């Protein structure tokens, strides 16, 4: 295990050095040969046991041919891949790879077949985006699963739509484009790039906004608010009742 980590660290460092010198990271542009080779090495070490030696997929994991760089970056940078355990819901956790390693993996998978690319800095730039339109688009396309405040909510049979609070702008973009797990794909044809930028701006607003009305309680609506009133509110009432009725010496 230590050996593996050491090897990963060395490869990562080498890649980082190579990466800065070649500046081959711009998404959509052809990936450098070195990055692809590093990515393939990482893939064979960490991913091939489930996704197959040629990413053709196995009985336990889908094919990655055509999955695209965006999908790889989303799954690995949110820590969902490599999978901790095959459960109903793939959960977010600390990523197992560094950003340069993820970029290498993404570059390798991108060579297997055409798929959604990692968004560029210009695509993720929301300075000219419209927050109000973003809110409307969010409520029409995202809120049904991720909740009106982006806090996430339950799906069927133990699955759930995760909270958007820890998501980076890039991850939100990649999720819309690739539809991870049970999330539908929101292609550029029906949700254009400017509209995606509007949504990013709204998500950033949700992540940083001040709760004007007091405690947000996770913005889960009546569930947490009712639970708090029921436990703390009724508990306090019961406490006062006991105090009023207690016998004095």
């Amino acid at each position, binding site marked *: 295990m230590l050996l593996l980590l050491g090897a990963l660290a060395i490869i990562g460092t080498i890649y980082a050095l190579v990466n800065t010198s070649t500046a081959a990271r711009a998404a959509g542009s052809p990936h450098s040969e070195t990055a692809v080779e590093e990515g393939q090495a990482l893939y064979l070490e960490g991913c091939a046991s489930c996704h197959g030696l040629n990413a053709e997929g196995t009985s336990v994991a889908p094919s990655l041919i055509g999955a695209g760089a965006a999908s790889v970056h989303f799954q690995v940078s949110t820590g969902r891949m490599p999978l901790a355990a095959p459960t109903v819901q793939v959960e977010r956790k600390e990523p197992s790879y560094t950003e340069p390693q993820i970029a290498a993996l993404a570059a390798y998978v991108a060579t297997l077949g055409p798929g959604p690319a990692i968004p560029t800095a210009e695509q993720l730039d929301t300075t000219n985006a419209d927050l109000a339109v973003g809110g409307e688009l969010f409520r029409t396309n995202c809120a049904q699963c991720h909740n009106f405040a982006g806090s996430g909510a339950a799906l*069927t049979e133990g699955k759930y739509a995760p909270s958007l609070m820890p998501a980076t702008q890039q991850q939100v973009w990649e999720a819309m484009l690739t539809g991870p797990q049970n999330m539908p794909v929101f*292609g550029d044809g029906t949700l254009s790039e400017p509209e995606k930028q509007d949504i990013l701006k709204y998500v950033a607003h949700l992540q940083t906004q001040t709760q004007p009305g007091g405690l947000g309680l996770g913005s889960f609506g009546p569930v947490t608010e009712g639970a708090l009133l029921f436990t703390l509110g009724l508990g306090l009432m019961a406490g006062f009742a006991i105090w009023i009725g207690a016998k004095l010496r």
Partner: protein
Amino acid sequence: MSDSTETEPDFVTATEAAHHPRRTDVDPRAAKRAERQVATLFVLATLLILASLVAYVVIPVDAGVEIPLLGPIGALNVALGLSLGLGILLIGLGAIHWARKLMPGNEVVAMRHELRSEPDERRAAVEAFDRGLADSGFAQRPIIRRTLIGAMLVLPLPLVILLRDLYTSPQGAPSPAEQLEQTIWDSDMRIVTDVSLNPIKPEDVPVGGLVAAVPANLHEVEEEEGNLNARAKAAIILVRMRPDEIVSQQGEAWDYQGILAYSKICTHVGCPIALYEQRTHHLLCPCHQSTFDLADSGNVVFGPAARQMPQLPITVDDEGYLVAVSDFQQPVGPSFWERS
């Protein structure tokens, strides 16, 4: 209770033996201390309530304050809650403390009266009723009695008729039931994205994709009608799956190359739903967890909904944009009285 007499007082003091005097009953210094404590609570409450006025004037509405563990919260509400809320609480605490320490601590018994009236009063009431019955002639004059009962029976009829006509339909307009059965979807009506109202080509919808969509003429209809009724019935979702994943549909080839259009309105009580899981093809209603399988005619697989989700037949027009083939072939949304 049974041995209570006319002269018994409402309250009697329980026997002295059962009562333990409090410290404030026997020690004047303890009573004085309790008095000071109550007064202190009331003074603190006064100061806090005044502080809430200061906070209201001084703190801007949009100011935030970072509370450890709880995150950023509006500063004004935090200040008002702490000052005014605590002030009101202290008034209550002072009152309880006052009652517990200083008000009389003797247990008292409040006697309950018998609910039944005295025999004389009961007899008088029966006599008055009988006299009224005889004087009015209600029993002796059957024609009056029967016509009165008849009048009372027709009285509710206007209520029923007026309620039915609360909805006034113009001459020739469809009845409320007919309106519930149809939407503004029609043959060759373009399907456009919700919010941005862009027409959709089949290649815009990827496999696993989801699009919230409305009919192209929705905004004109909304402006004409001045309400959102058309939207409430016509909202749909487009989903795309591989054609071999489609088990069944509500009509022969109602999809377009794996793109399926389903109503967005739950058939249980009408919540809008778009919780679509692209792998299971399940559509889940957040209100009561009704689950529809969009790969299998939109049939209900879980939950209280009694009816499948209505499917809209679609195709493409000459310019290659997705259009409806016709209106829905069954009423959308929850059941209603006249639904066939």
